């Protein structure tokens, strides 16, 4: 038994995995454990040693925090659906029809990710601003149309989220679609399949791992969205991350903030667990 453990520990794979593993225990499991622990402490305590309680979880439901939860989840789900629908034709084009233009189109799609999302969201504020914004100003000057305020609504928050998270759906989807062999599409066509059948029976199932990864990434990151609602939404909607931030900082109520965090990450964690079980990462990342 001991020697098999020693064998395992001397495997080069285990040795090279260890720095990363140790780092993630300190940097990832540690924080989650502490948040989990704090969520069972009485209100406004800053250390362990006292009694344990479920009050914070009860307060989540009795004080309307579940509404925040529903807003965040609803907006994240809507964002995911929109980004999938918008991305599919683009990903298809990148894999199949753009040919040598693919690389440059890809580069154009990548650049915005590396401009801070706050900068881009504020750009939307400048574009949509009432009266003197780019859109309102152009409409007024060119067509004489007066527009009302376009900011500070749930719709514009959704637009901002779709905008920010689009690449996170698009790139994994592109990876997934590029895994569909052209031969199989040709074969299906030779056997008499129509466009819709090819899409449903060949392309979609084969591209599914990439689409799932992209959708999951988008959904989970969108749950943590905070700047979109603050910059574009004013105070229309309070998002989950905002509520947690409020408890951790201004309200100085770590236990309640921790309980909201635990509920949020339990849901996303379970989702990630079930999706990841279906996906073979070796297959997705290996080059053909």
């Amino acid at each position, binding site marked *: 038994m001991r020697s098999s453990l020693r064998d395992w520990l001397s495997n*080069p*794979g*285990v040795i090279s*995995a260890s*720095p*990363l*593993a140790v*780092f*993630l225990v300190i*940097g*990832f499991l540690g*924080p*989650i454990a*502490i*948040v989990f622990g704090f969520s069972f402490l009485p209100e406004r305590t800053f250390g362990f040693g006292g009694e344990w309680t479920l009050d914070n979880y009860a307060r989540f439901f009795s004080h309307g925090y579940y509404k925040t939860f529903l807003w965040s989840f609803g907006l994240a789900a809507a964002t995911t659906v929109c980004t999938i629908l*918008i991305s599919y*034709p683009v990903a*298809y*084009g990148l894999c*199949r*029809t753009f040919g040598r233009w693919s690389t440059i189109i890809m*580069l*154009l*799609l990548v650049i915005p990710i*590396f*401009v*801070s*999302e*706050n*900068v*881009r*969201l*504020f*750009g*939307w504020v*400048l574009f949509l601003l009432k009266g*003197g914004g*780019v859109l309102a*100003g*152009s409409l007024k000057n060119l067509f004489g149309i007066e527009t009302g305020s376009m900011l500070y609504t749930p719709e514009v928050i959704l637009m901002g989220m779709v905008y920010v998270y*689009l690449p996170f759906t698009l790139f994994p989807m592109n990876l997934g679609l590029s895994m569909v062999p052209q031969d199989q*599409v*040709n074969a299906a066509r030779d056997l008499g399949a129509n466009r819709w059948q090819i899409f449903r029976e060949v392309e979609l199932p084969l591209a599914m791992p990439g689409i799932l990864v992209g959708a999951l*990434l988008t959904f*989970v990151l969108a749950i*943590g*969205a*905070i700047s979109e609602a603050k*910059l574009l939404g004013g105070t229309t909607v309070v998002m989950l*991350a905002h509520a*947690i931030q409020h408890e*951790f900082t201004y309200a100085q109520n770590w236990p309640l903030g*921790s309980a909201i965090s635990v509920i949020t990450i339990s849901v996303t964690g379970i989702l*990630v667990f079930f999706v*990841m079980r279906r996906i073979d*990462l*070796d297959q997705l*990342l*290996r*080059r053909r």
Partner: protein
Amino acid sequence: MNFETKPWVRRLILAWTATVIVFLYIPIVSMVMTSFVQSRYFRFPVKAWSTKWYQEMLGANLTQDLHLTSLYVAMTVAVCAVVIGFFGALAFARYDWKGRKTFQRLLMFPIFFPQAVLGLALLLWLTYVGVTPSWEAAVFTHLVWIVPIVTLVISIQVYGYDTSQEEAAFDLGASRWQVFREVTLPALAPGLFSGALFAFLLSWVNFPLSTYTTGADSTVTEWLYTKMIAAYTPMVPAMAALSVYGAVIILFAGYAILLARRRKAASAS
């Protein structure tokens, strides 16, 4: 017979993609345009253009401090992430060991995690352990999210790496260190380069992790956010535009370097 997409579908897809690209660039162009406006408050259509906010911004000490902080954070993150991620990628994609599949899946959890929640959990953790927020603390928080991503980026290169070259070098009498330096490292260099580029840029633009952990050391993105929420100054668009130019230059340069390498590799073989 090769199955071809019909020309009108092709054109439709191209038009759709063009629309998406326009959508992606609308706010960026608006921001760059605003940075050249002469008046203190932005009003479209613009009456007078000027570069005075750039001059004011470039003359301010603040600008240098913010960029230096961002640079320290991003450079440290890039170096640490590539070192840890390199070994992580070997464990991820190359070696066969018991527990590899579990390791691969566990590595996904920090990436697939609401970032602001991660930032707040790390804030609580650092406060509890007694670490004062600073740019070094921000490096640590960035790494939690960026190292797994960089590991994936490098893994893609590792999957395509032919290990028989190493065996050949061993057979010719090379030492472990020589093989590592002369065979493994050069073969994986493009992956390490992309990994470093990714780490640097992701760290540079990060907001949800920085905001809770930098303390008194403010990064460019944090300062911009504070000024956007309250106390707007015309230096905001100028500094924001500056980072847009930076990102474009770095990405095109990185792309050019990769292309040149590929061409060189193609002509050598």
